[in-house]
């Protein structure tokens, strides 16, 4: 009887302990499985990407047995190209790379890890290397590739003291996407568009031809944030509020001019009826069906996605319009696939070797991303680069600057603009516009004060 009791007690204890152990070990097991699957997938998919350079250039020293963790938000072909580079680095150096693919949850997950000061050895900075992640990143200005980055990249990632914290392998060039098929059918020459007045005139012709002129969606902050420099910041703009924006004293009164202009899109019926609820995937699909002409303030990955859905669509890019005649035509440059090193990593030499390796083998990543090149090794012209060059042939004086909200607004304002876009989409009355401005001002002040602490 006693023996039976002991057996029962022991079994019950083992079952309970096993439950705890399985709950604890479940995470690490799946990470290892993911790593294994990633490596297999990287090796299989690598042949699909375009790589004109010799594979595996710039092999680093032997780091056998060392392990590094990399976090990325990349997906699709770009991720596959990146995995190929990782696989090649692993085979040449003996390093084991654990790749965390956070996808759309990347930002949320990274914020959580920053809060606990437990960051991956290498992680993507996605445009926030200077404003958000700087205090966690190592200075990389002394690296061999730093001097090779082109002006488009340095203008975005170099700090005022010359330091830079990320390897920017691709750049996102943000302008106004144009569906040339629709413009041709409507009799509109997009290259002749200079000011917002010209833009509205073109939209009117497109609407009369039976198409939807503008595919902007107000579920994204882009509709309210990406083109603002045209009115507020650049040469020939209606206002020059840069200093006030950067020192936290901006009162947002001039922002009403932008809202008044955007109201014309609603009043004149240039937008989709459901622009308040659709997402980028819907805009891409409708453009691929040749239903709409323009989308303002979007990166070249949009055109890449449209042509992937329908290769017969001819897409182009024009700079963001000027707010008045003679004003600067500009494009925003953002970090594309950019990688920084955690300053407290225990594998600094391995991480630097990895970034050096990526800098010399970034052709595949650049081609897959469809964005603009930033390094001399990138010999194949990406689709995005082609769009940019075509645009420059029509607009030789186009001006490039960092994405407006990243340069002039405190960290966190993108989310605020997203809410404000929804508010404005619902109510474009004078009271509605004032509510939007009050909401932006209040949050801007809050976030600016927090950034100064």
């Amino acid at each position: 009887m006693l023996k039976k009791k002991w057996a029962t007690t022991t079994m019950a204890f083992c079952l309970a302990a096993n439950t705890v152990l399985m709950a604890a070990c479940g995470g690490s097991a799946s990470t290892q499985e993911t790593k294994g699957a990633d490596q297999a997938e990287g090796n299989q998919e690598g042949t699909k990407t375009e790589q004109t350079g010799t594979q595996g250039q710039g092999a680093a020293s032997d780091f056998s047995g060392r392990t590094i963790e990399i976090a990325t938000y990349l997906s699709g072909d770009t991720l596959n190209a990146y995995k190929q580079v990782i696989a090649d680095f692993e085979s040449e150096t003996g390093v084991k790379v654990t790749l965390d693919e956070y996808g759309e949850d990347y930002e949320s997950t990274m914020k959580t890890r920053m809060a606990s000061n437990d960051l991956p050895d290498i992680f993507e900075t996605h445009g926030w290397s200077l404003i958000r992640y700087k205090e966690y990143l190592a200075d990389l200005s002394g690296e061999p590739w730093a001097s090779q980055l082109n002006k488009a990249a340095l203008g975005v990632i170099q700090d005022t003291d010359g330091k830079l914290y990320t390897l920017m392998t691709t750049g996102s060039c943000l302008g106004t996407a144009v569906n040339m098929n629709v413009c041709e059918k409507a009799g509109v020459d997009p290259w002749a568009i200079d000011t917002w007045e010209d833009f509205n005139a073109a939209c009117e012709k497109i609407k009369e031809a039976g198409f939807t002129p503008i595919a902007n969606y107000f579920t994204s902050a882009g509709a309210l944030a990406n083109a603002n420099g045209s009115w507020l910041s650049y040469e020939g703009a209606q206002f020059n509020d840069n200093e006030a924006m950067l020192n936290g004293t901006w009162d947002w009164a001039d922002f009403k001019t932008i809202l008044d202009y955007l109201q014309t899109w609603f009043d004149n019926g240039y937008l989709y009826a459901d622009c308040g609820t659709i997402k980028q995937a819907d805009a891409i699909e409708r453009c691929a069906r040749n239903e709409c002409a323009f989308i303002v303030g979007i990166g070249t990955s949009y055109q890449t996605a449209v042509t992937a859905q329908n290769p017969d669509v001819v897409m182009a890019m024009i700079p963001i319009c000027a707010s008045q005649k003679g004003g600067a035509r500009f494009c925003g440059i953002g970090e594309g696939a950019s990688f920084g090193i955690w300053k407290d990593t225990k594998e600094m030499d391995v991480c630097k070797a990895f970034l050096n390796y990526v800098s010399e083998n970034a052709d595949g990543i650049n081609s897959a991303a469809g964005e603009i090149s930033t390094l001399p090794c990138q010999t194949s012209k990406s689709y995005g680069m082609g769009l940019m060059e075509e645009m420059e042939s029509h607009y030789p004086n186009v001006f490039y600057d960092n994405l407006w909200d990243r340069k002039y607004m405190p960290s966190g304002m993108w989310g605020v603009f997203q809410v404000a876009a929804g508010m404005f989409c619902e109510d474009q009355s004078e009271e509605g516009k004032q509510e939007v401005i009050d909401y932006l001002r209040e949050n801007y002040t809050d976030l600016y004060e927090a950034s100064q602490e």
Partner: protein
Amino acid sequence: MEKRRKWKYLSLCIPAFLLIVIFMIVPLGNAVKVSFYKWNGYSQKMKWIGLENYGSIFTDKVFGRSMMNTFIYGFGSTLFQNIAGLSAALFVNKQFKGRNLVRLILYMPIMISGVIMGAIQYYIFNYDNGVLNNLLNLFGIGNIYWMESGIGSVFIITLINSWQAMGFCMLIYLAGLQNIPKMYEEAALLDGTSRRQIFFKIDLPLLMPAITTAVITNLIGGFKLYDIIVTLTNGGPNRKSLSLSYYISLLYFNDEKAGYSAAVGIALFVIIFIVAVPINQYLRSREVEY
């Protein structure tokens, strides 16, 4: 000996107790602590602001709207799920050909994750080229902007959530119905009672334990609704279909207001507690045994 046995049994609870402490008590305590600070969620610096975050709750229009939505998702979903679930259970409790197949079909929606369900329904309710509008176009009816208003979006989310979780309710009620001894029904029939009277006077009172379980589970699930909203409406239009759970997430990760997000999280915890406990007590008091 009795005391020794008691300690032996208690010691077997230690692993479960540790899990509750580590994954529930400690995070709750941390959330309470963060709610007294102004913090962006990732910086190493936090600023003490006392009860300011709790004060903001009373002036935050989005919180008020999200709370209303949360009550609709909770009570609305519970009502629909339980009525539909009980009806389905009564139906599949009968003997007929293909009964098992019908049970499977009714249960299947719950096997799909909320995120996927929201994504599927997005393409059904989409204004342009959505499945529902395409069907209406066949009958000459123009496109309807189903999710144009907050009310419409909330109603659609409630319906979809109810339909998806109905299968879970059906299982609970089916188990409850099958646990009711046949002798009560047979005795009632012998006494000349109608089917309707049997259901309301015998089945329903004896189903109270199942009703308690289903109602409380559905209520808490509805109050915590998150995944369907993310993929179906993303909280829109203009944050009008947000639930408190999703609002907490947006405050933390989107708006970088981690302290305020924690305060709203504590408020949600209190709301669920205040609502669920009395309902649980009331339903348990209605349980009968014959």
